């Protein structure tokens, strides 16, 4: 078993078979880790070639791509691009107005979904087996949807299109929180050191899988069983699908698309406030969405 501080391998933050509620980081042999990174780079290059192919409609290009394109609408106002908070900031709940606005957008998006898209999203986010099955096969293929069976590819592309339908009408930015469970040898006493050694600033993480998260840190509080080895990704992005509810319910669930690249800004212990006024403290890894959209020839929007 590799030593926790100097592992004989590389940590992939999204390699293990996680749930909607938490990613599972895992050690990979360094040569395997590097090989997968090269495969992803090759897939992005192929996506770029698909985008530059003449005679294909946008829908045809979408079907041929390995990873989904970003489709976010323009930011309506600079203040609506939510930024990563400063380390000393107490993370609080999403305002009532923001929950309402996002809920309205969610409902409008759902209204536009085809029945098959609706059923795919519902199955993916409520059936843990479906979530794992789809994400596991995506991870096995470093995010290449074209390597999947016809049935799997259809399901993934329906999910992609459902998320893109929200993104196309989303003129806001997000800060999304997602749990990441570290390998089993990590505990509360060495979580901080493990994060420091394996999630250093500047490193870019690749998410082959979809990511389940929420807009508030208190909502992603984890059960006691794995809490001691679970950190929180705090992700600034414009991507994804809001699945929370409006003002009356404390639910700000958000699903991020697959194929994202996020750069580590830093990590620290952060306080957050629960609706009942009490506070908690979690180890946060701040991430900035840097997904390469140079493969997206039709994208004229800013992130």
């Amino acid at each position, binding site marked *: 078993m590799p030593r926790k501080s100097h592992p004989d391998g590389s940590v992939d933050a999204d390699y293990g078979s996680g*749930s*909607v*509620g938490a990613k599972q980081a895992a050690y990979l042999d360094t040569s395997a880790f590097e090989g997968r990174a090269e495969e992803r780079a090759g897939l992005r290059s192929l996506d770029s070639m698909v985008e530059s192919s003449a005679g294909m409609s946008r829908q045809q290009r979408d079907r041929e791509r390995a990873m989904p394109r970003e489709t976010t609408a323009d930011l309506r106002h600079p*203040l*609506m*691009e*939510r*930024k990563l*908070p*400063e380390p*000393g*900031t*107490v*993370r*609080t*709940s*999403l*305002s009532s*107005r*923001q929950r309402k606005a996002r809920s309205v957008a*969610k*409902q409008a998006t*759902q*209204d536009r979904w085809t*029945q098959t898209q*609706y059923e795919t*999203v*519902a199955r993916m*986010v*409520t059936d843990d087996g479906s979530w794992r099955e789809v994400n596991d096969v995506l991870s096995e293929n470093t995010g290449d949807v074209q390597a999947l069976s016809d049935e799997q590819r259809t399901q993934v592309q329906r999910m992609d299109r459902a998320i893109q339908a929200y993104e196309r009408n989303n003129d*806001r*930015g997000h*800060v999304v929180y997602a749990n990441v469970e570290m390998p089993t040898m990590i505990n509360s006493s060495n979580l901080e050191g493990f994060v420091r050694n394996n999630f250093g600033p500047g490193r870019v993480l690749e998410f082959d899988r979809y990511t*389940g998260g*929420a*807009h508030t840190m208190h*909502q*992603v*509080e*984890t*059960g*006691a069983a794995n*809490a001691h080895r679970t950190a929180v990704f705090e992700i600034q992005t414009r991507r994804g699908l809001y*699945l929370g*509810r409006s003002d009356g319910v404390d*639910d700000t*669930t958000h*699903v991020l698309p697959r194929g994202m690249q996020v750069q580590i800004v830093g990590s620290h212990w952060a*306080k957050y406030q629960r609706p009942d006024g*009490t*506070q*908690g*403290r*979690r180890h946060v890894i701040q991430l900035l969405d840097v997904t390469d959209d140079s493969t997206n020839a039709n994208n004229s929007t800013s992130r």
Partner: protein
Amino acid sequence: MGYTDSKGRPEIIAQPFIAKGTADWRVIDEPDDAGADSDENTGNGEQ
């Protein structure tokens, strides 16, 4: 009565985080200076 869309479908509710923190979790992480940063930026950008 909850929301249904124009096709009669109920709103999709994910609720992936139902396993909220236990009492132990909350006690372990209760800070001794709660509220110390309450007048700082909320951390949630646009409010």
